[in-house]
């Protein structure tokens, strides 16, 4: 279902294509041996090649090529056995060579599709146009000196993958789902860390609007949007801006715009930027990149189970809902954690505990699953205690809180605190009798037809047993006694 926006003249459809730049996880740069570690001293990770000293030549990093192949396979796209590196020529101080080595008409990865999951439970396919490898530029620093600009070349030459989508995206929700899904896949593959705040993943968003069924409108490109939230906000803003212009009788200018997260608006970049003629041509310093079927197949065999496959397996194998499965597979460590918890246990119960309790408290405390004080084994142990009636679900919440605090396993906590569930019907019966005796009015009311009071009796019994009474046994006994 396309998401439509109401304007004064009727409804408008938003059409979005995205170009995502993802820094490749690799020890060294695309064409040099310099390190790629984030956060080093300025210009401490610059080789002669990165600084474009006279006579220096690029040598392709084979590991990066493998990462690109892996990514191509992971986004269900064609891996091209023949691809060509080309030079994109322009002058800028953070571009030492005066050209960026990129891929132009013959990229390493061609067409494909990825599936995005929407909030209403539907799945939509977004076409991938291509993915290519290219060098990152350095960074200009304008705040270090009153009159001069400085250049940090640490990032110069780092490998980027540019993943280009078809204009299949129809609004901010889909855009957010697309970039989230892409990030998830790259993280599963281990080809990009997806840290948008460190700039290792950023998006250029191409946006246009049209009346449903009409021809594509003129698009504006928003550059370097660096969070999922910013992607959504910038689209919201841009769609409104374009509709207002069009409805006011104006025309959309094809241009590059900048997202300003502080002012919550997109702004036109200087038009000089667009006057660029990049004069692409094949880089004569590099041979065309030739891949063999064997090489591609060898890498295919190393692919991990990808998010979509995992999601469907969780649904089939563990009987989870699509929603629960998507929450669990959102991050690979989370999915691994869940699988450990659920191993040989009640998988649905395990899913509830991981999603509602564990993720809840971790989120609240701004922690990752990797930081969880409760190990997957221990949470699994607790699920076991619930399933074999050692503790009730209610007691389990206390046990869980204690586990989170101390990191201890559920068994010892139950032992230490004497939280073991009372399943002895004799003991429970005594408490039931006591409760009924103490509340004659309510008993009479219940018997007179106030069915809802049943919960009250259960509550009283549980309270008296300090939560340790087995709820099933309590229910059973109460039913008998009140009938």
């Amino acid at each position, binding site marked *: 279902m396309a998401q439509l926006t109401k304007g004064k003249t009727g409804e408008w459809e938003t059409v979005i294509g995205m170009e995502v730049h993802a820094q490749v996880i690799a020890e060294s740069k695309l064409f040099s041996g310099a390190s790629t570690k984030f956060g080093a001293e300025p210009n401490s990770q610059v080789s*002669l090649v990165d*600084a*474009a*000293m*006279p*006579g*220096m*030549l*690029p*040598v*392709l990093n084979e590991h990066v090529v493998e990462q690109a192949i892996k990514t191509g396979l992971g986004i269900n796209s064609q891996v091209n056995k023949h691809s060509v590196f080309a*030079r994109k*020529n322009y*002058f800028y*101080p953070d571009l*030492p*060579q*005066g*050209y960026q080595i990129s891929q132009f008409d013959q990229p390493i990865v061609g067409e494909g599709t990825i599936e995005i999951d929407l909030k209403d439970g539907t799945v939509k396919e977004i076409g991938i146009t291509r993915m290519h490898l290219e060098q990152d530029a350095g960074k200009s620093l304008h705040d270090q000196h009153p009159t001069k600009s400085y*250049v940090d070349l640490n990032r110069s030459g780092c490998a980027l993958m540019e993943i280009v989508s078809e204009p299949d995206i129809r609004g901010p929700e889909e855009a957010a789902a697309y970039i989230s899904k892409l990030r998830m896949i790259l993280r599963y593959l281990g080809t990009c860390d997806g840290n948008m705040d460190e700039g290792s993943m950023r998006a250029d968003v191409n946006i246009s609007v049209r009346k449903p069924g009409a021809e594509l409108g003129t698009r504006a490109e928003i550059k370097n949007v660096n969070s999922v939230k910013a992607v959504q906000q910038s689209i919201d803003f841009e769609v409104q801006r374009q509709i207002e212009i069009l409805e006011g009788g104006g025309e959309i200018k094809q241009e590059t715009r900048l997202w300003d997260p502080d002012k919550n608006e997109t702004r036109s970049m200087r038009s000089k930027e667009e006057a660029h*003629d990049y*004069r*692409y*041509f094949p*880089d*004569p*310093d*590099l*041979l065309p990149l030739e891949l063999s079927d064997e090489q591609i197949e060898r890498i295919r065999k190393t692919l991990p189970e990808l998010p979509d496959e995992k999601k469907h397996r969780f649904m089939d194998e563990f009987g989870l809902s699509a929603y629960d499965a998507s929450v669990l597979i959102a991050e690979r460590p989370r999915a691994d954690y869940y699988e450990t918890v659920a191993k040989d246990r009640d998988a649905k119960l395990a899913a509830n505990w991981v999603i509602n309790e564990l993720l809840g408290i971790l989120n609240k405390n701004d922690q990752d699953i990797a930081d969880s004080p409760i190990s997957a084994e221990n949470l699994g142990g607790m699920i076991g205690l619930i399933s074999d009636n050692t503790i009730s679900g209610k007691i389990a919440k206390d046990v869980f809180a204690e586990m989170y605090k101390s990191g201890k396993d559920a068994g010892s906590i139950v032992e230490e605190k004497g939280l073991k569930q009372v399943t002895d019907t004799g003991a429970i019966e005594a408490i039931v009798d006591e409760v009924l005796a103490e509340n004659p009015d309510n008993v009479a009311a219940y018997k007179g037809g106030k069915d809802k009071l049943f919960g009250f009796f259960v509550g009283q019994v549980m309270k008296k047993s300090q939560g340790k009474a087995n709820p099933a046994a309590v229910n059973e006994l109460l039913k008998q006694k009140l009938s």
Partner: protein
Amino acid sequence: MSDLTHMSIAGALKGLESKDFTAVELAQAHIDAVEAAKDLNAFVTETPEIALKQAAESDKRRADSKAGALDGIPLAIKDLFCTEGVQTTASSHILEGFVPQYESTVTANLFREGAVMLGKASLDEFAMGSGNTHSYFGNVINPWKGEDGKPLVPGGSSGGSAAIVAARAAMGATGTDTGGSIRQPASFCGITGVKPTYGRCSRWGVIAFASSLDQPGVLARSTEDCALLLQSMAGHDPKDSTSAQKDVPDFAAAITGDIKGFKIGIPKEYRMDGMPDEIEKLWQQGVEWIKDAGADIVDISLPHTKYALATYYIIAPAEASSNLARYDGVRYGLREEGEDLRAMYEKTRAAGFGDEVKRRIMIGTYVLSAGYYDAYYIKAQKVRRLISEDFTKAFEQCDALLTPTAPSAAFAIGENEDDPIKMYLNDVFTVPASLAGLPGMSVPAGLNADGLPLGLQVIGRPWDEETVFKVGGVLEEKAAFTALPQSVIRKAA
């Protein structure tokens, strides 16, 4: 002492080994010769201290029986090769004062074998030219003179290298050849020059002109000397993705004098309208020598030859326009301050590059521009493939080709300056082999009526420098070229 400067490399190596003289004496003799040849303006930077230091170390190695293949041999290094700690300029103002912190692979290979560096030889700025008239440091003068005594160009772009070897002030020199920049100056200066197959020598540390064409090579006074130098320079380099993973054959061993049964092709398209008679005659003489030696002459056709120069003057400037973008005043070399970034770029590049370099950057930028790319660059690439296929077909019929090296002898300085196209025509016989990446050699074969040297070119199959050396060796033997430049004769007298 002057005898030392007239020796061959092979002879000098024998003399050093049998202790007839020391490497220091050999170096000193050449330092003196460089001094005496100063009027040729062949060097951008002279390095006599380095030469003497290297020579002393060489003598020590030889005393310890650890001498390398070229130990003690004094060479000139074209100032396009980056040399660690020694200014490297590409004869451009924009790189004046630039001192690399690294050594090019080719010079590192030469020094590993004990070669001694006399200095950095001048060239056409960024190797763009055929007369060595486009150097920021002034034109180089050919040691040869015609009847009228006017100063002549040494050819280019490796003009400093060729002039200094011809003047007996270096035993050999490195060069680079993009469209004829080794072979044409070798022909103009009466010496031997070899451009090996593209990919035979590493381009790492060689300042780039046109990456798909640039190839390091050698200039010396005999085929054997060229073979010895090339032997040490060549070989796979993992730092250059276009350098070939191929074993380097024994080039000198290929010079046997025996070409019986070989088929040597004569491309009819190289017989051009307006070609001087003396060139035609020399070529015919070469054919006779080949026949005398027992090889067969085969008439072959390279039908796309007439498009070669036009193709070259699209591809080479296109690559150059991009390769030279790094000279922007930001990190090294010349910077002319401006009110903003753009002004700094414009002023730096306006002041730093000479006219010919600017001309080629503009041509290259034009042919790569939107709307012109298909018509020029793409078309040129297609024609380049056709030219390459011409050679492939020709080599089905023959083992090597024989052609003149250049359409004329050395011309007077200033003569072709008014017309860049006329200057470009100098490379008409050398450019096709460059476009096809083939090995080529120029051998001095005779003098024209004005007493100036003329060269013959041998072109071989890819990776078959051995046949080129073999055929070149026969031409050398038959031509028995012993003439000396006037300046050398004058000094000897």
